[in-house]
């Protein structure tokens, strides 16, 4: 029998020589061009990291192609980033240009460093999950195509991080992103009593509903949903296959903006909803790409150098943001859940809106 609990391979076996030698000794870095990081160590050694965009959902042929490149330019080592980009770790400066040339030839985009848009952290969507309100890879492809110029350049006010999650489970952890694209349902679950009766523990199902919309129905040995109380979170469906929440007609995406996780300057912050719903116009989600581009450009045109999306909006005020972005405001954007109170404007100070 195979060995169990051996844990992951030791990272030391995965480090190229230049890193082994300079581990913990890096002194500073520069970004000689978008997508290329130059790290210089205490003893003068330099490492060039070439960052390459990846669709994340990839074939093993793609991985093998990456290996070929790493063998050729990087002594057979590479890494992936926390945003699913590939990083070629080049110890020999003379190999940087040839690598870049070959990447260009292969159509692999180099970028994602500094004041750019990096890869979109995302999830499974229709490709592999059972609860999605939208697809993941498709929107990501459409949005990255549209914003491509900002991946390979560093002309934005600051880094911009987009996250996508295909349902409220939020596997993309998009809730603290500069821009979050979140799949949302908009209709209450339709109950398949047979399925509920079969495998579901009714008390757990009832308890799973954050708003208390689900009550047991001892007669049917199933449950009933108070539709007025339901906010379509889908948590009941996660608990039971009988709580069918997918609704092709009404599922789609919400857009939230202004989150961040770094502690630099300002404390980490949540993204906040600015568009409650856009339709799932597959295959290219034009409403979503257009909305995202609009937000990016309004920010790019108005923020100060070094100002993240949320920092800019907090400085000018959300009411001003809606004006500048030309986005309609509605009561859907006002919180009505547990921590709503902290969002209410408990002050007589605000800016007026044009519309």
């Amino acid at each position: 029998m195979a060995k169990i609990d051996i844990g992951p391979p030791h990272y030391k076996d995965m480090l190229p020589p230049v890193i082994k030698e300079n581990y913990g000794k890096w002194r500073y870095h520069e970004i000689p061009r978008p997508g290329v990081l130059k790290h210089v160590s205490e003893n003068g050694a330099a490492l060039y990291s070439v960052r390459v965009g990846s669709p994340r959902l990839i074939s093993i042929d793609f991985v093998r192609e990456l290996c070929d490149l790493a063998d050729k330019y990087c002594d057979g080592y590479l890494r992936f980033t926390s945003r699913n980009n590939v990083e070629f770790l080049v110890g020999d400066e003379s190999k940087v240009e040839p690598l870049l040339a070959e990447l260009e030839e292969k159509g692999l985009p180099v970028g994602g460093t500094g004041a750019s848009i990096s890869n979109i952290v995302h999830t499974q969507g229709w490709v592999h999950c059972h609860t999605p309100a939208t697809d993941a890879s498709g929107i990501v492809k459409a949005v990255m195509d549209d914003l491509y110029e900002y991946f390979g350049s560093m002309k934005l006010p600051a880094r911009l991080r987009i996250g996508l999650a295909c349902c409220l489970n939020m596997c993309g952890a998009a809730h603290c992103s500069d821009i979050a694209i979140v799949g949302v349902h908009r209709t209450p679950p339709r109950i398949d009593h047979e399925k509920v009766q079969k495998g579901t523990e009714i008390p757990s199902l009832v308890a799973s509903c954050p708003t208390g919309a689900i009550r047991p129905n001892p007669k049917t040995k199933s449950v009933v949903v108070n539709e007025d109380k339901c906010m379509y979170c889908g948590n009941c469906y996660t608990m039971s296959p009988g709580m069918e929440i997918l609704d092709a007609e009404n599922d789609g995406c919400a857009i939230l903006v202004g989150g961040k996780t770094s502690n630099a300057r300002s404390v980490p912050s949540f993204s906040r909803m600015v568009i409650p719903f856009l339709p799932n116009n597959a295959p290219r989600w034009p409403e979503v790409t257009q909305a995202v581009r609009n937000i990016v450009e309004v920010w790019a045109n108005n923020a100060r150098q070094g100002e993240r999306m949320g920092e800019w909006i907090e400085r000018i005020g959300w009411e001003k943001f809606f004006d500048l972005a030309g986005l309609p405001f509605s009561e859907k954007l006002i919180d009505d859940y547990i921590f709503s109170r902290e969002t209410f404007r408990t002050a007589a100070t605000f800016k007026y809106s044009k519309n």
Partner: protein
Amino acid sequence: MTDKKTPLLDELEKGPWPSFVTEMKKAAEKSPAAADLLLQLEKSYRDRKGYWKHGGIVGVRGYGGGVIGRYTDLPEEFPNLTEFHTMRINQPAGWFYNTDALRTICDIWEKHGSGLTNFHGSTGDIIMLGMQTEHLQPAFDDFSEAGFDLGGSGSDLRTPSCCVGPARCEYACYDTLDACHNITNTFQDEIHRPMWPYKFKIKFSGCANDCTASIARSDCSVIGTWRDSLRIDQDAVKEYVANGLNIQERVCDKCPTSALKFNPETKELTVNAEDCSRCMHCINVMPKAIQPGKEKGASILIGGKSTIVLSAFMSWVIVPFMKMESENDYEEFKDLLNRIWDWWDEHGKTRERIGETIYRLGMSKFLREVGLPAVPQMVFRPRANPYVFWPQDEIKK
């Protein structure tokens, strides 16, 4: 197989960003399952909904998690998707690979699965996307043989992950890779055998830039910091000035604690270390001139998670500073984790994340029972209500 039509998905082969559709087509060349996946996805694109059945529990011997069962809703139309599970493989710390290892993974996956994968999943694992039940055990055996193990899933410790840290980053305040590897190995049982109220995630970031987004994405965030003063190299400061950086505006004015003073006459930059909150901003702008302090370690934060159920939480400070250098330091951290897990195990409801349990029962109870001293660093500000639960042994009877 691949000559079946996918007009909608084909649209996603256009445009400059590398296409996952192209990747799926590549896989479809060799794998009938991948080919069916393409077609089912095309159908999803047409109908605007997913076609996967709800859940399903499968696994490999000796493990309680690591595999996500997946079955198509349309087995007649897409027979090769009848079983299409994913396997989570624990990545090496920092997501570093040598090509041998990667090629081995590819070979195993060519043999047992769809040939499709995610490098990486959102938690950090390598995601082997789509395999039949009968291949689970043999695939695992091959991975194990090659030195790879499963990641977490279900109500267990999820695969920890860490930033690139000292491997390539001058800001790292502790060895994120070593800590991640060490702690992952200690908690193999917790990763592989679900036994808690719900999932628990740990992420290691070497400094407050938090490049793993740990504060949003993990129940326990370990974020590098220092206790003494950041270090300023005045010559390098002058170089930045010479190169045209407006230090007052771009650095001092944006310091959240106003801890920096720049003297335009002498071109000296000084810091009031007591005020500095170690946000990293000044270092980020002037990495050649400013470095973290020497007395390094990490802050420990608890409670991060996303939306479901009580709203998203970000982690918050429970230990302002902990050394993270020696095995002893790691032990202290692991001991803390064990105390936290015990407490959560005792008090948490099913599917209640640790942050939600603490929120429900109160920080004071949590701190008292887990044995952590309350310090003002744990809160942005004290309570606004006077609703103190007074320990009844402190009152006069």
